[in-house]
Structure formats: C-alpha cells, structure tokens
C-alpha cells in the first residue's frame, strides 16, 4: 500500500478509555472517524466475545426488552391511552437502536418497521397527522412490502387533504406485494379517495 507517511499521533487515553487526535491533525472526516471508532470500541468492550459474531447472531436480551416495550405500547393503545402508547413505542425504537452495528441490518429493519408503523397508528388516534405521516413513511422506508404502513400513510395524507398523494400511497400499498391482510382496507380507501377526487 502507499502508506508511507509518519503515523498519526493518535493516543489512547487511559482515563476516558477512548482515542484522541491532536487538533492540528484533525480534519472533519478524521474527527468523524475518531468518533465512530470510539463508539465501536465501546460496543466491542460490551461484547462478551473477542471479535463480533457472524451478523446473523442476534442479541437475545435486547430482543426481549424491545418486545416488552412494544407490548406495553400495544396495551396502552388498546386502553385508549394513545400518548402513553407513543411514549412506549419511542422507547422501544430507542432500545432497538442500541443494537451493536454489526448485527444483521435485515433483522433490525424488520423490528423497527413494526414499531414505526404502530407509532404511526397511535399518532393517528391523536389526530397528529403530520407525525403519523412521517412514521408511516419511515416504516415503508424500512420495509417496502408493508401494505399496512402504506394504508396508514395514505390515511394521514387524506386527512390533511392531500388526496393525490393519498391515492398514490394506496396504490403503492396494493402493488407492494406484502400480505398482512390490509388489501381490503386499501381497496376501499382507494375507491373512497377516487370518489373524492373525481366528483
């Protein structure tokens, strides 16, 4: 390799347990890299193994904690305590993001998409259409073939009077190829918005 320059004066600080680079050597990209490195080091120290396991090995303890918070959110929602439900789903999202970054991103996406979609539903029950719209959209970003999330996104848009966008959301939901029993809802919503648009 073409690495022939003098090594960087990077130092491991025994007290703070992270590495530092003197200011005069610090470019913006190096600063970001040092920060990422220190964060990865903390994850590795917390790991009970010498190197990261293969990506498909998922931390089971975190799984349980995320599931518990999600269940608490679902229960609050069923009791009609919608803002509590939002809080629980937010905590579950935070917990899910604590996963070490080397774990399978496919699993993380699946887990998070359900949480965002559920939070969207809770926001909708509070008529917080803007917040719900972004959550629905995020759920779709995480999992494209997720008809229920498309349906919720469409409903938010429809409530805010953005009928063309709502129509597009329902149509995408029907085309998305997922199967979670939302097709009937999507079809009737599409018929409804078509009527509103063309009457």
């Amino acid at each position: 390799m073409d690495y022939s320059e003098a090594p960087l004066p990077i130092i491991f600080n025994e007290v703070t347990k992270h590495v530092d680079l003197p200011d005069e050597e610090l470019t913006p990209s190096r600063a970001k890299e040092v920060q990422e490195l220190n964060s990865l080091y903390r994850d590795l120290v917390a790991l009970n193994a010498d190197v990261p396991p293969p990506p498909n090995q998922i931390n089971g303890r975190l799984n349980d904690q995320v599931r518990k918070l999600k269940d608490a959110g679902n229960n609050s929602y069923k009791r009609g305590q919608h803002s509590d439900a939002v809080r629980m789903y937010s905590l579950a999202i935070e917990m899910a993001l604590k996963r070490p970054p080397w774990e399978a991103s496919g699993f993380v996406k699946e887990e998070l998409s359900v949480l965002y979609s559920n939070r969207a539903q809770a926001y909708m029950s509070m008529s917080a259409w803007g917040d719900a719209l972004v959550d629905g959209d995020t759920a779709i970003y995480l999992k494209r073939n997720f008809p229920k999330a498309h349906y919720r996104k469409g409903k938010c848009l429809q409530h805010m009077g953005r009928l063309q966008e709502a129509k597009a959301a329902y149509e995408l939901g029907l085309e998305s190829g997922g199967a979670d029993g939302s097709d009937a809802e999507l079809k009737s919503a599409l018929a409804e918005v078509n009527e509103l648009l063309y009457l």
Partner: protein
Amino acid sequence: MGKISLYAPIAYLVLLLSSLALFSTIYRRRKVRRLVGLQPWFGEHDSRDIYLSLRAQTSPKVPEKMLKAALLRRATEDVRRIMSLQESKPALAELHQRGAVGDEIWTRFLAAEKVMDAEIMECAGEANLIKPAWAQTLFPSAAEIVQNSRIRERLAQVPELQKEEREKWEKVREKVLSELENENDTAATETEAKKANKKRNKH
C-alpha cells in the same frame, strides 16, 4: 564475404533486440510516471491510517479491542469503497466505450480497483494475524455496519421531518378554518338579510 554474412544477422538481431528493450523500458517508465501522476479515485483512507498508527504505537499500549475496533472501521470503509466501485463500473464502462469519458478517468478507475484489491488482501491478512480466520466474518460484519449506519442516518431525520410536517399541516388547517369561518359569517349575514327582507315584505 563469409565473415560479413555470418555477423550481419547477429548484428541485426542485437540491434533489433536492444532497440526493442530500450523502447520497452522508456515506454514502461513513461507509463509508470503517468500512473504516479494520476489523482487517486478516493480521498484519504482515514480509518486505515488510524489503524496503522494505533498498531505502530507501543507506549502507552493500545488495548486489544481498540485495535480490533480500528480494523473493523478500516474494513467498513473498504466495503463502502468496493460497493461504490461496483455500482459505478457498468455505467462508467459504457460511457468510456462511447467516448463520453476520457481515458484518464478510466485508468484512474482501473487503478482504484487494483488498489482496493490489495487493500482488502492486506486488511484480511491483519485480521487473521489478530485472530485466526477472523477475516471470514470481518467483511460480513463490516457490510452490516455500512447498512446499519445508513439506516440510523435516515432515522435520525425523523424528528426534524415530523416538525416540518406538523408546521405545514398547522398552516393549512388555520387557512381552512379561517375560510370556513368567513363562509359561516357570510352565510349568517345572508340569512339575517333574508329574515330582514321577509319582515319588510310582511309589513
């Protein structure tokens, strides 16, 4: 006569071979000089520099896991670069074939591929030195780090996007409400006017 006929082909061969050798050395030297002058495809490889610097350090001693983290960061950047090369290769190759992209850019691209091949080999070698057979899972782990950091970047935008959507909807709602009120007002004044008219007609 016999002497000339014996040495002539040998002299010819010597002349031919030496001129070919001269041509080839000059040609190669020029090529190397051209390649050296080429701008690298990617910028600084910060995580590789950091890893090598940490590895070279003897006092204070850098913890084993910090070295591993640094190597994982290096592999992460390698994966990102390999992905970027793979993504741009088909389009770039076609543009180069059509003449829309010059030879220099194409040479730089091919050089970057070679550099990355060597970099991957070196990184894998380092991993196996730290722990036998780690290279087999190092790059899969690094690939997930790339994906996961993309996801986190997108999710970090959610609160800001929600604020925007809330404000947008609030504005629309206020507008619609004030329009409705105006309509109600005019409707109310209209009905009052009608009542007044009726009264007048009665009288």
